[in-house]
C-alpha cells in the first residue's frame, strides 16, 4: 500500500504516527482513506469545499502532483506521498 508521511504537527490527529499506509490507486483516494481513518486530519488538509487548502502541497516521491495529474495522479504500493507546506510572505 502507498505510504503517506505525516508532518509532525499533524501526528496528533493520526495516533502520533509519523507515517500511515493507506489503500488507494490515486493520490485523491489515498488522502481520502487517510482522512476517513483520521477525521480530525481533514480540516487541516481540505477546505469546506473539499479542495486542498492553499497552504498544502502534495508530492508523490519527488514530484509535485500539480505538475502530474493532481489528485488523479496514480500511486503504486512502493510510492511515498508527502504533505508539504506552501509558504511565502513579505513585510
Amino acid at each position, binding site marked *: 500500500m502507498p505510504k503517506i508521511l505525516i508532518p*509532525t504537527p499533524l501526528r496528533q490527529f493520526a495516533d502520533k504516527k509519523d507515517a500511515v499506509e493507506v489503500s488507494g490507486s490515486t493520490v485523491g483516494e489515498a488522502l481520502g482513506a487517510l482522512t476517513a481513518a483520521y477525521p480530525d486530519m481533514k480540516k487541516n488538509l481540505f477546505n469546506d469545499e473539499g479542495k486542498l487548502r492553499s497552504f498544502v502541497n502534495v508530492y508523490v516521491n519527488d514530484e509535485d502532483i500539480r505538475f502530474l495529474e493532481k489528485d488523479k495522479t496514480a500511486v503504486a504500493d512502493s510510492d511515498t506521498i508527502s504533505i508539504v507546506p506552501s509558504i511565502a510572505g513579505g513585510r
Partner: protein
Amino acid sequence: MIKIEQEAWDLMVAHAQKTYPNECCGAMLGPIDGDVKTVRVALPLENAYPGAQRERYELRPEDLLFAEREARKNGMDLIGIFHSHPDCDAYFSKTDLENSCPWYSFVVLSIQKGQFHHANSWLPNMEQTEAAKEELEHPNA
C-alpha cells in the same frame, strides 16, 4: 514556547544580515517536548520570490520537502520557518499571514541598517486571518 539554541541562532542572524537589504528565509529543526519547541538546527534556504526580494520571500516546496526529510533523518521535527524584515519591525504582515501555514512557528527577524535588531515568533491560524504571538527565547533576547 519556542527556544532557539546558540548555534542555530547564529546561523539565522548571519543569514539574515548577509541577505540584507533583501529578505531571507529558512527552516528550523529540532525536538518538540510537550509545549516546548527547541530549535537545534537552522537551515538557510533560498528566497525564490521572482520579484523584488526587499519586501517579499518565497520558499520552494521542494526545499521544504528537503527540510522535512533532513529532520526525519536526524530524528528531529520541522518546527518552523524564519524570515527577515529589512529595516522594519518583526511583525507578521498581511502578506505573511495570507501565505502562511498554521502548522508551524514563524520567526521574524528585524534587521535594521544591516544589523540584527529584534525578533518575534508567530502562530498563524487556519483561516490565515490572524497570528498569535508565541513566547520566544533566543541568545540575543
